[in-house]
């Protein structure tokens, strides 16, 4: 069992005058159930051409309704108007503009990956990771 810790802080000195914002939270990434640390992960980076819709994490999580964590960051630096649109389960959730990131727990609900990103306004560079409860590599094609 591995111990992987995610920590977030969200701060602002000027959001509410006289009341600086300081949110902090930490979580150990656990497999399905809440007692065993995650040991499996997939990380990478990619360039997403404009209007190209890509599926991250090919063939998807192997275990339905298992516990997973997804990290995606738009690492584009040369044009801050570019963004990627991301979908979970065929539903558009949001946009990651240059420099933006997201980190969410995720449950697959079926065996397809269903984590999709689409580049817009130009090519976007991203880095991504999925921490997984279980993972079976795609079967070799005969």
């Amino acid at each position, binding site marked *: 069992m591995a111990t992987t810790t995610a920590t977030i802080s*969200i701060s602002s000195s000027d959001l509410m005058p006289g009341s600086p914002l300081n949110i902090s*939270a930490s*979580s150990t990434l656990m497999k399905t159930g809440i007692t065993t640390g995650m040991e499996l992960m997939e990380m990478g980076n990619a360039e997403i051409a404009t209007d190209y819709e890509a599926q991250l994490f090919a063939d998807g999580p192997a275990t339905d309704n298992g516990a997973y964590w997804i990290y995606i960051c738009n690492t584009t630096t040369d044009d801050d108007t570019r963004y990627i649109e991301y979908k*979970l389960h*065929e539903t*558009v959730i949001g946009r990651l503009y240059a*420099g933006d*990131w997201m980190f969410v*727990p995720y449950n697959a*609900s079926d065996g397809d990956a269903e984590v999709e990103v689409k580049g817009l306004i130009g090519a976007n560079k991203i880095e991504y990771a999925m921490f997984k409860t279980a993972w079976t590599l795609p079967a070799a094609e005969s």
Partner: protein
Amino acid sequence: MATLIPTLTLSSADATTDLINFSVVDNLTITGKVIGLSRVVTSTGDLTLLASSSYSRSYVYLKNIDDSIAMDVDFGSTASFNIRPGEFAFFPWHASQNIVVAADSGTPILEYAIFEA
């Protein structure tokens, strides 16, 4: 206009034979509505936490502060997250679907905040 600075750090000494230790920081411009850190009691019935009609592009923070009960977070009718006890999420939301929350059981408390770009 205000600046919001979210930072994520992932670390592990034993997930791989090399250390995992990285941080990512963003600087977000916030010009719209803000709901500061708030808490709501959830139940097994669907609770519309954030209505898409009330927001434009925003950043959302969620944390399940219960120590034993998980909760589902759906976008419209699409099940997407299951936030287990103590877990959090931070993500940009395009406000095209309501964010709907339902507890797996009981009445766990969800902590949340939203920042409209």
